[in-house]
């Protein structure tokens, strides 16, 4: 992979683990702490650890990559705030990479991959985050679909279109399709996709022109809040 940056830090706080990876020309150093509540306590020390192991002063970093979601809102904010704070401290670009983008290996000749991740897990509110990742590991817009929408997306992306399928949890996708009565899709091949801080760092390293807009968490949903009827109807200013 062609790189436009040599020393890149990758941060992933979107899931149940807190992971960091330091990409150097010689090697990749990775550290992970398990536990959904570990992010806030662990992240800064993990970053300090990998930098120390590579004997790299923070100012020598060329770029910072952060996984922007989807995932736990608190985790995403810890990661994005950290990455942007570090970008500010060392005056470097921060590149946002979605979990989906970070979970598949794309070669120049690879066909696009529809990446599927569980969103809401409990029926009847079950839903899925889907994103099609193409050349350069760049994804289209992240969408949340319900079971029926997932089946449609799988059909549209099926073998006919040349798009491959991958999921963080392929078995759950197959169960969902079966539950939806789509036995016709039973023969689909769904690869395993795994989000990775190291891959996020590699994607960021290969980005020729990082966006000048700093990354934001990929929430996928508006905040859960209802306007107050009293205030909304009030004419007093």
């Amino acid at each position: 992979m062609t790189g436009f940056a040599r020393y890149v830090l990758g941060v992933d706080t979107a899931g149940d683990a807190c992971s960091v990876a330091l990409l150097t020309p010689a090697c990749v150093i990775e550290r992970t702490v398990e536990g959904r509540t570990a992010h806030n306590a662990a992240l800064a020390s993990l970053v300090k650890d990998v930098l120390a192991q590579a004997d790299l002063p923070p100012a020598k970093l060329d770029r910072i990559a952060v996984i922007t979601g989807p995932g736990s809102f608190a985790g995403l904010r810890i990661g994005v705030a950290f990455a942007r704070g570090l970008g500010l401290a060392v005056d470097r670009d921060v590149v946002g990479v979605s979990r989906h983008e970070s979970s598949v290996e794309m070669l120049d000749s690879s066909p696009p991959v529809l990446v599927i991740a569980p969103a809401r897990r409990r029926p009847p509110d079950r839903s899925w985050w889907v994103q099609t990742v193409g050349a350069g590991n760049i994804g289209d817009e992240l969408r949340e679909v319900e079971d029926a929408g997932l089946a449609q997306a799988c059909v549209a992306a099926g073998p006919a279109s040349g798009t491959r399928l991958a999921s963080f949890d392929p078995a759950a996708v197959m169960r969902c399709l079966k539950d939806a009565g789509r036995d016709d899709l039973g023969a689909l091949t769904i690869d395993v996709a795994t989000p990775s801080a190291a891959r996020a760092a590699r994607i960021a390293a290969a980005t020729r022109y990082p966006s000048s807009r700093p990354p934001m968490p990929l929430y996928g949903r508006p905040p859960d809040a209802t306007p107050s009827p009293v205030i909304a109807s009030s004419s007093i200013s």
Partner: protein
Amino acid sequence: MMQDITVLGIETSCDETAAAVVRLGASGVRVLSDVIASQVEDHAVYGGVVPEIAARAHVERLDGLIRRALSEAQLSLSSIHGVAATSGPGLIGGVMVGLSTAKAISVGLNTPLIAVNHLEGHALSPGLVGPLGFPYLLLLVSGGHCQFIAVESLGSYRRLGSTIDDAVGEAFDKTAKLLGLPQPGGPSVERLARQGDATAFNLPRPLLDRPGLDMSFSGLKTAVRRIVEEVGSERTADVCASFQLAVADVLAAKAERAMGLFAKSHPGERGRFVVAGGVAANAQIRERLKATADTLDFTFSAPPMRWCTDNAAMIAHAGALHLLAGRKSPLTIEVRARWPLDGAAADHAPVHGGGRKGARA
């Protein structure tokens, strides 16, 4: 001679994103910059602060705001000796954003991190405008807090009493909401109160009949709701005036008791009474508290309004004092939604939100 230390401060515990640079030196305290992005507009239609909206706004704005604070201070990050951030108590989603950003800057610059208790920032805020002169009696009265604190020295705080339910600012906000007035409620209610008759409605003065310094304001809000249900929106100004007078009566009476207690435990010196927090902006309440202090021969002061409400200068200032005293925080430090200023005492006798997780504030 004491060497100058310059600290970057970050505040994200409620609905203000703020960054500031404060320098502590032989010539005193200098606030080199102090910037704030209020989210009032973002929350207006909801009639109160929505934690998820607040957290999203903090992460979007904080780094830009820090850049502005540095540029206004005409400093680069490399001339900063430490980075201080509010790590509680407050809305946890926002606090995480500030602390995580501060940790990143600490790692990136290899500079000390100082996690600051938001309440301590307020408690020490008189130091932003002059020598601190310990000890003093502090009334912290804001949208999130209402407590009397004996500030003995840096790191030594004794809570004498506090609200057992709503904070005063919260009571103002809720009253404004009931009356259909815009948020924040404090200024809205105060403006209308000027045109109203404060004796129009007889509202309760909760806990005045009981000894001690604890306060309660949720009953006041319920009383206001009953009046609104009874008389409709006809007499809004009278309701505002009556409500504000009730709050002023309670605070003045409790302040009188607090000063008595404080004087007893600090004999032989003239007492100092400091009021901090957004509610100190209310002219009637401030006048009443000042009059009470005058009667009991306490000096009275309140930091300028911009440092009474939430701000990052007070966080940078508290951080700088701790750094000077040789204290800093480990990178693994966690946010604390609940974090009373006098930790041990509050754990033994929680008056507010006690229980499994400990006292709230």
